[in-house]
């Protein structure tokens, strides 16, 4: 992990707009000014959902974001600048902390003999035939798949006996940053889900009102899976705590790759395929000069000192050295 060594002493104001990342951005700023005392910050932390819009209005420089940008956000930025926002991966999401960009875990009932799946099989289970899929805001034909790739019975996953002809009942989240990530990572960006997909929203958030969201919280979902022998769903380890009769499934990126169980270690080292990330977005086109003060700040975040802030915060996880170097290289292009 590289140390932060200032390439230049920089001056000015860096305007941040988006997620505070639970105090992480402020800690990065406090540590950064120890190296760069002539920098000040103007922050407005409204949350991840507003992050990219702050850039699109040209009123802010950096957009810290606890999730990937979404379709309409890519479009808004494109309207303002004619290019896509530049995405810098600055940290790894939590393993099991709700609200902290947690890793998405596949759950089945504990009686289910299934132990592992590939990402392609997940697409077959949760997705549906499609003519293409949207990548950021571009419709691409290489995201297409036919109905023959649908996986609708447990027998299609190799289960025998009473399981073989039983239909697979799918569960997961309705529209959220988590479901967008699932769509991007598993379904090539498509929002065509298995027609039997049962949708829920995160318990204890503004999306679930106990008076009108009866049985639709994420805890309800996991309890429903625990009662459904033929169910499969995706959710968070933190949300599943205390719910019996659930089993986690190991995942492989491709057939032939090792199957990785979700764990703190496999999320920390990012080998678990549904590990998530936190980001900073900005207006930068590779090959063009990046504002030196922004570059210095981002190189600080992508350094031993910057990643130490994540370790101390204790919920998000530091990046691996490989990803830090990869992200630094992207900023140097």
């Amino acid at each position, binding site marked *: 992990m590289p140390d932060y060594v200032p390439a230049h002493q920089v001056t000015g104001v860096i305007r941040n*707009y988006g997620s505070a990342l639970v105090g992480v951005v402020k800690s990065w700023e406090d540590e950064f000014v120890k190296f760069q005392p002539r920098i000040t910050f103007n922050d407005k932390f*409204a*949350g991840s*959902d*507003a992050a990219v*819009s*702050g850039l*699109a*209005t040209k*009123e*802010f420089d950096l957009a810290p974001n606890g999730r990937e940008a*979404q379709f*309409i*956000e890519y*479009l*808004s*930025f*494109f*309207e*303002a600048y004619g290019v896509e926002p530049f995405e810098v991966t600055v940290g790894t999401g939590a393993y099991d902390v709700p609200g902290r960009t947690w890793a998405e875990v596949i759950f089945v009932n504990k009686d289910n003999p299934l132990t592992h799946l590939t990402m392609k099989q997940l697409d077959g289970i949760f997705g549906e035939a499609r003519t293409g899929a949207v990548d950021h805001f571009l419709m691409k034909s290489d995201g297409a798949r036919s109905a023959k790739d649908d996986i609708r019975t447990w027998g299609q996953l190799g289960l025998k006996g009473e399981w073989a002809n039983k239909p697979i009942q799918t569960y997961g989240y*309705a*529209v959220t940053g988590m479901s967008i990530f699932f769509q991007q990572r598993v379904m090539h960006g498509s929002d065509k*889900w298995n*027609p*039997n*997909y*049962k*949708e*829920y*929203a995160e318990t204890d958030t*503004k999306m679930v009102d106990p008076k009108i*969201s009866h049985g*639709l919280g994420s805890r309800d979902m996991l309890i429903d899976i625990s009662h459904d022998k033929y169910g499969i769903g995706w959710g968070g380890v933190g949300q599943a705590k205390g719910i019996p009769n659930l089993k986690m499934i190991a995942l492989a990126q491709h057939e032939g790759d090792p199957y990785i169980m979700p764990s703190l270690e496999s999320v920390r080292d990012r080998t678990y395929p549904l590990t998530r990330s936190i980001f900073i977005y900005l207006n930068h086109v590779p090959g063009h000069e990046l504002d030196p003060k922004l570059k210095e700040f981002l190189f600080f975040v992508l350094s031993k000192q910057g990643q130490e802030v994540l370790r101390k915060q204790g919920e998000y996880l530091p990046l691996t050295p490989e990803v830090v170097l990869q992200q630094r290289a992207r900023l140097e292009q």
Partner: protein
Amino acid sequence: MTKMKNAQARLRQSSFACWMVVVSLAADIGIGQGQSQYELARTGPVVLRIWGQANETTGNGTLLQMLTRLEAAYSGLNPAVHFANELHGNDSALGGLYVGPADLVFMTREPSYIELDEYQQMIQGQTPLQIAVMRGSPSARGSTSPLVFVLNRGDPATSITLPQLKSLARKEVSSL
């Protein structure tokens, strides 16, 4: 009042009749729900900053003409009011409102779920005030045309009900 009625008449006569949404702060300039007559609510120099969809480069020049006419008609009634347009498109419009640089947003579609969520994150507990100001064009491409259902010409079907359409598109729904 006559000038405003004339402007309304010109709007009605225009070949372009787009259904749009104006969001927030409309009350400040005297437009209220169910109100058909113009009343001036402000005096003194005012710059109204409008963001949204009326950008020539998006292929919607007619809409820009329409907005310009509306602004000119309004300024004619109230010379103290000036307009500053930042018309990048629909998708960056609402951000202008909740981030701060816009007073009014001119959109040719409804705000999406994520845009409303962003607005509510920035302006706690609030939803934008949304006012329909025109209908979409029945035929002009890119002008909020009504949705039309198209069949192969060999298909004998001639009509369909909304419940039938819903059935055609139906999936299992757990959380409407």
